[in-house]
């Protein structure tokens, strides 16, 4: 079943998120130069890390989809990329706020990580339109997987290329945990964990919702009788479709 463990995961996410926020506001020391503004770092950087990992994970799941042809892998890949896109928007917004606060501009081209992130975001923004433009569900899944693999490989390459092109105008003090004070490093790690848990929980919610909807559709079709169900054309959609028969929706038969 898709919904299994959802409650535990949600509670864990809320707990770690609360802990992270507590640490951010009450435990981590104020940074000497930037003061309170620097605290957005505990949100911005974990969001960025998690969404990039999500993009790459979407690519890996797409490889699994092309190898096994199991539509559930396509669904996972779709959900991973979808959720990463939302986190990416969060990253760009928090990054922009940070840039405005510390350098006075909403956007700085001299920060290579932010620029690479924008390019990656622009690429992934075409994922949904691509899916939406293909009507045949099987081809939609296959093409989307090819896109996810290419884009997943592009993520690290792009970061290297953009990093090369910049002149390191701003020292990268906050880029790694190695040169952070212990209190900041701990807060940062808990924040990463919290955001990663949030990502996992939201992905699981979306998967469960999609799976439940497919189950519902299958049951409805069964109730209406096969002839009535197959005659209706499905609405075109960018999200993958799980073709469930009513039997496979019985509890316990479909694993996550």
């Amino acid at each position: 079943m898709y919904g299994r463990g959802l409650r535990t995961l949600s509670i864990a996410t809320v707990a770690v998120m609360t802990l992270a926020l507590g640490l951010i506001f009450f435990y981590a020391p104020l940074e000497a130069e930037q003061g309170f503004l620097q605290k957005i770092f505990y949100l911005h950087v974990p969001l960025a890390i998690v969404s990039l990992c999500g993009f790459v994970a979407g690519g890996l799941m797409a490889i699994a989809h092309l190898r096994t042809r199991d539509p559930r892998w396509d669904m996972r890949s779709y959900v991973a990329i979808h959720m990463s896109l939302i986190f990416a928007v969060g990253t760009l917004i928090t990054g922009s706020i940070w840039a405005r606060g510390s350098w006075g501009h909403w956007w700085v081209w001299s920060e290579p990580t932010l620029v690479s992130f924008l390019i990656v975001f622009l690429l992934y923004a075409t994922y949904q339109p691509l899916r939406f433009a293909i009507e045949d569900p099987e081809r939609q899944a296959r093409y989307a997987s090819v896109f996810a693999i290419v884009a997943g490989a592009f993520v690290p390459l792009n970061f290297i290329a953009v990093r090369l092109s910049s002149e390191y105008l701003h020292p990268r003090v906050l880029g790694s945990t190695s040169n952070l004070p212990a209190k900041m490093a701990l807060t940062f790690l808990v924040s990463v964990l919290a955001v990663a848990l949030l990502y996992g929980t939201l992905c699981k919610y979306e998967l469960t919702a999609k799976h439940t909807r497919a189950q519902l559709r299958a049951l409805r079709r069964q109730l209406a009788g096969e002839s009535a169900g197959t005659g209706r054309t499905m609405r075109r959609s960018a999200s993958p479709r799980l073709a469930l028969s009513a039997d496979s929706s019985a509890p316990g038969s479909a694993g996550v």
Partner: protein
Amino acid sequence: MRRTVAALLRKELLVELRTLESVPGMSLFALTTFVVFHFALNQNSVSGDEAAGILWVTLLFAAMLGVNRLFVADADQGGFDAFLLAPVDRSAMLLAKALALLAYLLVLELVAVPAFALLLLGPSLGQALPDLLVVLALADLGVAVIGTLVAALAVRTRARDLLGPLLALPLLMPVVIGAARATSPLLGLVHAEHSPARWLLTLGLYDLVFGLIAYAVFDFLLED
């Protein structure tokens, strides 16, 4: 494999020679874009970063026209079906199409680069030409590989003319970075000896990696 690629490439070039669908349009587009840049920037001659930028924006957008047309005939007139019926390696299609696109790009540059030197470029091109040719060749390889992959991905969607450039431009961003940075010292008022080696290396590595990725995934685009 080699014979298949040769046959496919011959067909591509023959079709292009007979219909003249891509290359004249791309070249004309490049020339028009130079005129647009002249008026939009209100400058009679450019150099350095600006010149490299104008050259690469123009070449890239002109290449997009070729990318959009690359598979259209195959998708609309049954070329894919015929190819799938043949007992040959499917990667041959990737290679042949990429080589065809490379040939289009070379012809485009044969027109666009001299025109650029004539119309907009301040410093003379003569000294810079050997280095520029290397940069052009490396960047063309990248555009050809990524363009072919993206064209195959976009051609059988409903919004193919839109999706092609939307997918290709972010993927080509590292090529643009490498090519523009390698070109700008060549077109500067003070002529540099060589373009920085690290950009050529970046371009070369990017071409190589994307060549491998395209080879790995291309088969999956040609299954039905």
